[in-house]
């Protein structure tokens, strides 16, 4: 925010950065090569629904658009307890590119409708042989990724997260400020 914005007390809504998502397929390959984690084929987009008809129309269009796709993919809408809407897309585990394309379709529909600033994050789910979960979270407003490894009882496995940060440092722009690695407990699709 510039000085003028401060003086006049206005905040410009932050537009989302959408293109960085396409780095995910290659990051998933790197991750599989270096660790036990494999994609679950599930990804989700989270946004804060705005009130009013305009937004719900767009939401419905997006859902129609995604469920028109081929039979091996599915889409599901859920709301979390914080009032955020999650569009959960499921593809075959090896079809990360198709998944990312679907997620991107959600984003660009929202953005085209003028609701880009409502986008919160995208999560791509991973799992290792022992059943540990890992989410690669993409922050739209920062244009950065961070790993989120939830454990039972709302604890995070920081060691795994640090390890993932090292592994993916070359593929993805990892969020440098650890204070912004906010936890997404119970995120649908993770």
């Amino acid at each position, binding site marked *: 925010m510039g000085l003028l914005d401060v003086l006049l007390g206005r905040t410009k809504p932050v537009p989302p950065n959408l293109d960085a998502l396409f780095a995910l397929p290659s990051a998933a390959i790197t991750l599989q090569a270096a660790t036990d984690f494999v994609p679950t084929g599930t990804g989700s987009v989270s946004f*804060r629904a705005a*009130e009013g*008809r305009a937004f719900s129309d767009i939401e419905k269009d997006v859902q129609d658009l995604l469920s028109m796709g081929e039979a091996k993919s599915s889409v599901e809408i859920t709301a979390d307890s914080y009032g955020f809407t999650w569009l959960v897309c499921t593809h075959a585990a090896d079809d990360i590119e198709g998944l990312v394309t679907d997620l991107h379709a959600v984003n660009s529909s929202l953005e085209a409708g003028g609701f880009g600033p409502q986008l919160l994050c995208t999560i791509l789910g991973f799992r290792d042989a022992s059943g540990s979960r890992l989410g690669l979270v993409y922050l739209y407003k920062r244009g950065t990724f961070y790993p989120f490894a939830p454990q039972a009882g709302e604890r995070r496995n920081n060691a795994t997260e640090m390890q993932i940060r090292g592994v993916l440092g070359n593929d993805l722009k990892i969020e440098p*400020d650890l204070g912004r690695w*906010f936890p997404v407990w119970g995120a649908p699709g993770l």
Partner: protein
Amino acid sequence: MAKTRYATDKGLIARMGATMFLIGLVFTAFIIVIVWLLTQYSNVSSGGIIFIAILVGVGVSFGSYYWSDKIALSTAGARLVEPQDGPMAAELHGVIDRLCALADMPKPRVAIAPGDMPNAFATGRSSKVAVVCVTEGLLRRLDRNELEGVLAHEMSHVAHKDVAVMTIASFLGIMAALLVRFAFYSELFGGGGRGRGRGGNDQNALPVVLVVLLVGVVVYAISFLLIRLLSRYRELSADRSGALLTGQPSALASALVKVSSDIARIPTRDLRAAEPLNAFYFAPALSATQGQVTLSTIFSTHPSLEKRLAALEKISKQLSK
């Protein structure tokens, strides 16, 4: 460029700009008049007085700005909480985490103040050391959507750097009061003695003190009204930014109604204890009684409930178009 639904409120911005311009204008005029008066007609060493007044004024303002978070937290008796500190704290952190990610701003510290009075405030000199504080009463009364609306409002205060803006604006009033006081005392105690030595200036001494006093009082009154006006505009701005951030102006409106109607029912002792903090509160402790009294409208730090609701309604209409 994708289309945007987030037009700025040009009228509000123009009014706010005009208010700040007036504050600056009055301040400049005030300094010029005082310096001129003292150098022309007084035997008081005006340079010294003004220097001391500026020093004290800057000190007081800087102190209240620099320690704004600590002062506000201890006045409210609030304690900082981490997500692990229980379900209330976890919920609060969860909501704030998401708002920060939506708004792309650093996460403020989070505090909970005891007490049943539903309210919230944000303070701190920069967004890095900012604190967002809510009362237990607020957490109990509001559902999560409304809580999110209130927190978005408070975080807009942080983003707009309202603590800094209001400190600078209040500087005018502080300076006016200090200069008057110093001029008065130095004329009374210091000036008289020196004046006798130089003879002729004695007749001028008393009227000058009166003029300085008068100027100071007038400036103080004007600046008081202007600062309150500015504060009300900043509140409307925070309402607006907060509502646009969540996309839920109606949730904020419903929180406002709940909080305001609840405040009317709480005991006076609580109200008085909370009064010094009003400028940074979400809804001021006395706002509920304001509806009937017209004069109090121009003295209050917050716009009336009806005004805030009307502004939010406008945003809601804009969003559903």
